[in-house]
């Protein structure tokens, strides 16, 4: 490609002529004024030396001085290199003009370095390239808009709220790419720098005053965009736009000096390792070499294998600068304000070149009242502060389980309209919470998407190998290793307001992210944003206290009630844990003090103590009660020659557990199945651990006697002779614990079935609803009812072939049949016991953890199966 031809093509490409015309309108009169002061047509004066804080003395030739003194370059004195970085690092306020001089200086160092190590046949070309690459370095930044990269950011798809502006900016990039046959990824500022060079008055200055040849100007312009005019000059563009180029070798060191963020780059050695290499076209990538004549000898910037490692150091160090300096959260906060300000007074990119950094802070500029407020924030450094760090590292549970949800959030954060909607939602949530708590709310919430790190794979430094061949290097591997994100690389929720409002914004943001994306975050999201977690917890507690329903949809976000971990409850909790310590149904569940506290933490603060009272009231049938007391009771209540028949049978059925416990008793009890027992002529004692409503036992009885169709599962149907034998036999039903309603029901049923049976128990519970007598019982009951219904709706209401209806779940919320019992057996919990004590499920969008999970039925995943009315402990 001929450079001048490409440059001329650019001047006619798409909207580029309009852009150039606009720039001419801004700079034309200024350049004319400058030249008239300088004496138009007089040409360049003498050389000059500048004393630079980083590199010491920097020489510019006469023509370069003429360009450096011109308005497009002098404007750069008022454009800070690091944009709003000086609001984070006070000394980092140096200008793009200083950097430009440094880049020219580094260009020369690089050229001299590669000349020394290149073959002598290349020296002439390298020497001749010097003035062109210096010109490129001098011009490379003159297209920077106010605030440097923040203005570029404004025109990005992620930021720009106005589609026409965004498309205009993209069109500039696309037109330049098309003219130069490049990928459309040249940065907007670089495109504008190239357009500046094409602007008639400036081009005239370069050509006729500074006396650069058209080919040199065009080559410099192409190099700024990262394009080589021809393969023999690949190295020229590489010196200006590459993983290691004059630009980076100045700004990285300059930024490091002024921020005192140290660099780990061995610059001297890196320069020592650079050379220009003439290679065969086939040494280049297939896509590149495809377009080159086979016998062509491209000249490229190269290094050796150890130099490649030094280049990797540059990638790594640059990444560190991005994390520590360029993407510092305070700088990002300032940029957030600047971006809003840019949105209030929209200009096209080329129009923005009429301004310098004063655009953002000049209070005399006519603006709307709200824009003035934003400008004052920047001028007086009243910047938004962080309230929430959004990173996949902080997801709960781990991001591996939330990939698709995370993509949803990530995409919304990258979309200006959807991001704005989220900001409004968080602001509204802040207002609602502030109203309930009667506290101030922030002035505004700003969402900042995660920052775009530099693109890997940009390196085009070739590696010359000992055998004389050339490789394109490791490419992705070292770049990616350097640039893989660190955990602190996050999007942010910022807010404008008092520091004390940080917790409010955190809580509001947390709720909106949960509501909109079903995403929850660990406390790292607050810690990373330097939000006081203790205060967040306090605010949530106050909110729940002020408005108990405020966590209706956000159960997972509730704070742990203060009382749960209060030392005043230590004794009670320790005693409860000790009492229930042998409860064992699911191997991984240990009934410890921590489990009791975690269970209580699910209750609102005012209900913690009442629930504790309820736990104390539980009838716990442990080994002692069943093995010793119940055995003694069975012996006492039974005829001496009686045989003992378990009411239920099969694995996980309660009566099949009892003989194990009863074996603790010294005297042996003759157990046998019903069928076996009927073969004898001895009185029968049918036993089980608990009898709650009597539903299950009557079903069993009905099945035995052929009165139930279909038969109750796993229960034998007796033949006519067996039924007759049963009816003629003395039978006693005996339970360890029984509720009087169950006793009455079973007694009635056996009469109807014409049995000669008695119903008794070691303990007969004559009480009414179990929660009666507990403090704040109505509120506790209402809460437990709500929990019970919800956990059943989210388990049984969604499972199986016949999911439970809402009404059925409601009917079992306080234990099946709403029996409202408080009885637990060492190896299981009866379903007549209050449901939230044994059923898992979801309550207010949070997992509900029961204190006594039920024994799992063989082959079932849940531990809370059964049907209402099947209120015996063994049912499960």
């Amino acid at each position, binding site marked *: 490609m001929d450079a001048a031809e490409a440059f001329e093509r650019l001047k006619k490409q798409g909207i580029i002529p309009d852009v150039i015309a606009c720039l001419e309108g801004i700079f034309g009169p200024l350049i004319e004024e400058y030249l008239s002061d300088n004496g138009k047509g007089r040409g360049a004066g003498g050389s000059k030396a500048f004393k630079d804080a980083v590199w010491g003395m920097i020489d510019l030739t006469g023509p370069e001085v003429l360009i450096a003194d011109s308005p497009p370059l002098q404007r750069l004195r008022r454009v800070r290199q690091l944009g709003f970085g000086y609001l984070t690092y006070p000394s980092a306020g140096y200008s793009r003009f200083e950097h430009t001089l440094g880049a020219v200086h580094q260009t020369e160092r690089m050229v001299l370095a590669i000349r020394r190590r290149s073959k002598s046949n290349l020296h002439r070309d390298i020497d001749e390239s010097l003035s062109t690459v210096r010109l490129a370095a001098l011009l490379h930044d003159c297209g920077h808009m106010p605030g440097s990269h923040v203005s570029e950011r404004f025109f990005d*798809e992620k930021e720009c709220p106005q589609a026409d502006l965004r498309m205009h900016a993209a069109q500039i990039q696309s037109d330049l790419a098309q003219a130069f046959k490049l990928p459309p990824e040249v940065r907007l500022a670089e495109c504008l720098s190239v357009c500046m060079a094409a602007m008639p008055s400036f081009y005239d200055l370069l050509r006729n005053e500074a006396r650069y040849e058209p080919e040199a100007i065009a080559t410099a312009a192409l190099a700024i965009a990262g394009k080589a005019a021809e393969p023999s000059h690949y190295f020229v563009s590489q010196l200006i736009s590459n993983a290691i180029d004059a630009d980076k070798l100045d700004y990285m060191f300059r930024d490091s000096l002024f921020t005192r963020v140290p660099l780990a780059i061995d610059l001297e050695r890196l320069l020592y390792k650079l050379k220009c290499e003439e290679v065969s076209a086939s040494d280049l990538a297939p*896509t*590149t070499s495809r377009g080159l004549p086979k016998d062509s000898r491209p000249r490229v910037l190269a290094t050796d294998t150890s130099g490649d490692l030094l280049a990797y150091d540059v990638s790594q160090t640059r990444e560190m600068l991005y994390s520590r300096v360029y993407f510092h959260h305070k700088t990002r906060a300032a940029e957030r304000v600047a971006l809003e300000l840019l949105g209030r007074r929209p200009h096209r990119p080329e129009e923005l070149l009429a301004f310098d950094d004063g655009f953002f802070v000049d209070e005399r500029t006519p603006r709307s009242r709200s824009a003035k407020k934003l400008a004052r924030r920047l001028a007086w450094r009243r910047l938004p502060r962080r309230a929430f760090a959004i990173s996949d590292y902080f997801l709960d549970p781990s991001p591996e389980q*939330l990939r698709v949800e995370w993509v949803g959030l990530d995409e919304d954060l990258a979309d200006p309209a959807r991001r704005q909607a989220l900001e409004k939602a968080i602001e509204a949530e802040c207002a609602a919470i502030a109203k309930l708590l009667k506290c101030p709310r922030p002035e505004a919430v700003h969402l900042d998407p995660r920052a775009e790190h530099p*693109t890997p794979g940009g390196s085009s430094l070739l590696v010359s190998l000992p055998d004389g061949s050339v490789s394109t290097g490791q*490419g992705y591997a070292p770049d990616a290793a350097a640039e893989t994100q660190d955990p602190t690389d996050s999007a942010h929720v910022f807010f404008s307001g008092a520091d004390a409002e940080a917790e409010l914004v955190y809580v509001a943001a947390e709720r909106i992210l949960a509501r909109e994306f079903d995403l929850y975050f660990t406390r790292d999201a607050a810690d990373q944003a330097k939000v006081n977690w203790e205060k967040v917890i306090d605010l949530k507690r106050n909110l729940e206290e002020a408005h108990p329903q405020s966590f209706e949809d956000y159960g997972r976000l509730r704070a742990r009630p203060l009382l749960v971990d209060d030392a005043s409850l230590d004794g009670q909790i320790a005693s409860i844990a000790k009492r229930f310590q042998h409860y064992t149904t699911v191997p991984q569940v240990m009934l410890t003090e921590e489990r009791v506290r975690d269970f209580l933490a699910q209750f609102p603060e005012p209900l913690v103590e009442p629930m504790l009272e309820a736990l104390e009231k539980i009838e716990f049938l442990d080994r002692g009660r069943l093995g010793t007391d119940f055995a003694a009771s069975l012996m006492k209540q039974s005829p001496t020659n009686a045989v003992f028949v378990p009411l239920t049978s099969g694995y996980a059925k309660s009566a099949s557990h009892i003989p194990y416990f009863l074996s603790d008793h010294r005297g042996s009890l003759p157990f046998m199945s019903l069928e076996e027992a009927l073969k004898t002529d001895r009185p029968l004692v049918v036993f089980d651990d608990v009898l709650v409503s009597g539903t299950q036992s009557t079903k069993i009885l009905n099945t035995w006697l052929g009165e139930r169709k279909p038969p109750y599962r796993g229960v034998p149907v007796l033949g006519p002779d067996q039924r007759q034998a049963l009816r003629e036999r003395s039978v006693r039903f005996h339970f360890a614990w029984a509720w009087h309603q169950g006793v009455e029901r079973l007694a009635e049923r056996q009469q109807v079935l014409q049995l000669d049976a008695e119903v008794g128990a070691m303990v007969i519970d004559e009480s009414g609803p179990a929660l009666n007598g507990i403090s704040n019982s109505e509120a506790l009951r209402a809460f437990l009812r709500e929990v019970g219904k919800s956990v059943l709706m989210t388990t049984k209401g969604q499972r199986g072939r016949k999911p439970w209806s809402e009404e059925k779940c409601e009917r079992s919320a306080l234990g099946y049949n709403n029996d409202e019992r408080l009885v637990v057996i060492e190896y299981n919990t009866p379903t007549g016991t209050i449901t939230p004590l044994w059923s898992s499920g979801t309550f207010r969008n949070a997992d509900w953890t029961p204190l006594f999970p039920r024994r799992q039925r063989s082959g079932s995943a849940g531990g809370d199966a059964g049907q209402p009315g099947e209120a015996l402990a063994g049912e499960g």
Partner: protein
Amino acid sequence: MRSEKFFRGFVAALRMQGETEIVTKGDAHHRTLDAVVERLEEIRRAKKPGAEEVPDVLVPREITGRYRAWDSALVTLQRGRLLAGRNPTYPIVEILFDKEEAKRLLERYTPEQRAIFAELAEAYSRQPVAS
């Protein structure tokens, strides 16, 4: 469509094709992408619906022939655990999600876009170096 979003859909389509990793050693992933670019050109020439939404970033770099946006996507998609590189040498980048998740990811695109992704992924998978 943003470049990152394009590559997310493309990688999901690769997973649907049965790919579980992207070989990056020696720039293999760029050479396999060459075939994708060729297929994309055919799709564009055929003016298939959705083709106009494919971002114009599939242009290789001069000299190295690398696709910067592709390299960038391989890094950024490591957020949210869609991909995982094996530091520090990165001979391959693993696709961490299964076909079911790939399907859910692709549901975020229009049917036309999904059809294009499938074609591109097929072109990629045909390359011997792809896995």
